């Protein structure tokens, strides 16, 4: 169904690659598109050998740039840009910054949950959507936040090391994503950035400390304080039990967040309205997105124990035949796998690059 030429790796030529692409197609089109332009774009895709405006094949991802460690004040961060081409004259792609910040929460008194919790927030910068009013922008931010939260809230995806003291204090992980510019395919960028920021995040090592007051005036009464602060049955008085923690090393960033293997990768499949055939493609530009709003978001996670479909969401106006779903899922899985492998390699490369940078800097001193 129109796979065309072998799809190139999304990371091919990233950042250093130079592509000559008409820059107007990187810009958000003034909405709405005229009917004629929509049919023009759709008709080109329905050809025997589908044609896209920038010459890509149906599953040719634009070159994607990924950088971790962009926000130095955050516990982990990443910046993803799909479609940014090197060179001064072309537009920038869909750019997204994600940052992880850890906050201490009290399980007993505050909002904390034993085992920690993750909260995703997406905010869309007005520079990314210049044609939207501020209320519409807020709505869009809210909708995107909901989608992200719903797709990624399953307990099996939860990182394991967010507890400080069991049942007392835990880390609350706030993943804030900011959309800086949107030129199509922003959901893929959001999920990529989320995964990369979580990969990059480091949880500070903590050590439980217990405040033990001096023995009380009643003499030899044993004040039993167990490690989890539950106290002894011999306590007849309210004794101050301060269960607290301290940072083990204040210069060390901490240990990595244990979440890596299972975290899913998102693939957006855009469906072409066609009477009998099923046609779909990926990595849209704004014009394509405006003319074909129906799309399917698929989140796959790949692990040694198998592939799992984590989440699925059909968005936009239109309908899909039930029989087509299997084809879509298979196709989506293939592309997601490639994306997952490429992302894994890139993240490892980023780790190396940053460790190297730190070492080089140190040597220079």
């Amino acid at each position, binding site marked *: 169904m129109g796979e065309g030429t072998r799809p190139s790796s999304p990371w091919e030529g990233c950042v250093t690659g130079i592509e000559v692409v008409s820059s107007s197609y*990187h*810009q*958000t089109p003034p909405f709405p598109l005229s009917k004629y332009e929509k049919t023009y774009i759709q008709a080109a895709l329905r050809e025997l050998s589908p044609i896209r405006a920038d010459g890509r094949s149906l599953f040719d991802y634009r070159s994607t740039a990924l950088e971790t460690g962009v*926000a*130095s*004040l*955050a516990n982990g*961060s990443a910046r993803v840009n799909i479609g940014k081409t090197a060179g*001064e*004259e*072309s*537009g*920038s792609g869909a*750019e997204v*910054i994600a*940052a992880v*910040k850890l*906050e201490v929460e009290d399980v007993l008194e505050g909002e904390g949950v034993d085992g920690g919790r993750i909260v995703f*927030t997406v*905010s869309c*910068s*007005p*520079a*990314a959507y*210049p044609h939207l*009013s*501020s209320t519409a922008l*807020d709505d869009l931010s809210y909708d995107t936040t909901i989608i992200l939260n719903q797709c990624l809230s399953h307990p099996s995806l939860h990182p394991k090391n967010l507890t400080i003291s069991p049942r007392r204090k835990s880390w609350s992980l*706030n993943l*804030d994503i*900011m959309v*800086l*510019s*949107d*030129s199509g395919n922003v959901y893929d960028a959001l999920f990529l950035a989320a995964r990369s920021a979580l990969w990059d995040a480091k949880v500070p090592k903590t050590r439980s400390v217990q405040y033990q007051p001096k023995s009380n005036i009643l003499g030899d009464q044993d004040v039993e304080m167990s490690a989890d602060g539950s106290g002894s049955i011999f306590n007849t008085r309210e004794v101050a039990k301060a269960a607290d923690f301290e940072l083990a090393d204040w210069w060390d960033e901490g240990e990595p967040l244990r979440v890596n293997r299972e975290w899913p990768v998102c693939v957006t499949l855009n469906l072409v309205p066609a009477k009998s055939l099923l046609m779909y493609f990926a990595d849209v530009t704004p014009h394509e997105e405006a003319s074909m709003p129906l799309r399917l978001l698929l989140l796959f996670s790949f692990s040694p124990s198998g592939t799992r479909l984590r989440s699925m969401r059909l968005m936009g106006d239109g309908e899909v035949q039930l029989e087509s779903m299997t084809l879509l899922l298979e196709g989506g899985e293939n592309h997601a796998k490639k994306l997952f492998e490429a992302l894994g390699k890139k993240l490892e490369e980023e780790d190396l690059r940053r460790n190297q940078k730190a070492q080089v800097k140190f040597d220079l001193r």
Partner: protein
Amino acid sequence: MASRVEILNDGGFRSDGRKQYELRDIVIDLSQQGSADGSVVLSHGLTQVSASVFGPREAKMRSQTLHDRANINIEVTFAPFSMGERRKRSRNDKRVLDFASTIKATFEPAIQTKLYPRSQIDIYINVLQQDGGVLQACINATTLALAAAGIPLLDFVCAVTGGVQSASPLLDLTTLEENDVPHLTVAVMPRTGNITLLTMETRLHVDRFEEIFQLVTSAGHVLHKEMKAAIKDRTRTLVAAMSVAPKAVGEKDPLYSERMDDS
């Protein structure tokens, strides 16, 4: 725990290794962001700010248009990860709105709005990282973005912060210094020397004011040189891209030589 960090030690060095009157490293990146007419990512040391300018274009809300000039609309967003502790500021937070209106007041006299009646100039500022001097960075970024967008300005607007640490003036303060020391921000239009912004939220002795004010204003002139060089560089690249046809040896592009020689 280490003892309190000294703002200015006996050797004349500050907490980040700078001297008293030394400004932080400036990084100006004028590459295009999204579909903005002009955009810039500016860093003063660790403070990073991005500004995008759209316009002059048709106003989104007719009620906001002015019959004889363009309406300037400034929106500032602080990224939740920009500060040490995460803080999510809503768009209608009083401090944020106040911040935006300060910047707007700074640019009212500088932008030639009379040339574009009934239209709107939108300036969107994203504060990505905060380490002191945020207002200064936002103003400088706005100037650069406006220049990159080709909007006629009367002059650059360059802003610098300055503070006084027990009779010693300091320039371009970091968060650590801002929390400790009375400071002010001045925005100056270098060609005429006119001041479009002077703001101070802490208490400063009136005898100290004159000195720090003069210093900050002259620092603004120094910044002006850097900003001008960055804009010239960018324009040079664009002009080179425009003149695609190869030139004969010795033949000069008249557009290039005419404009580039002006300093």
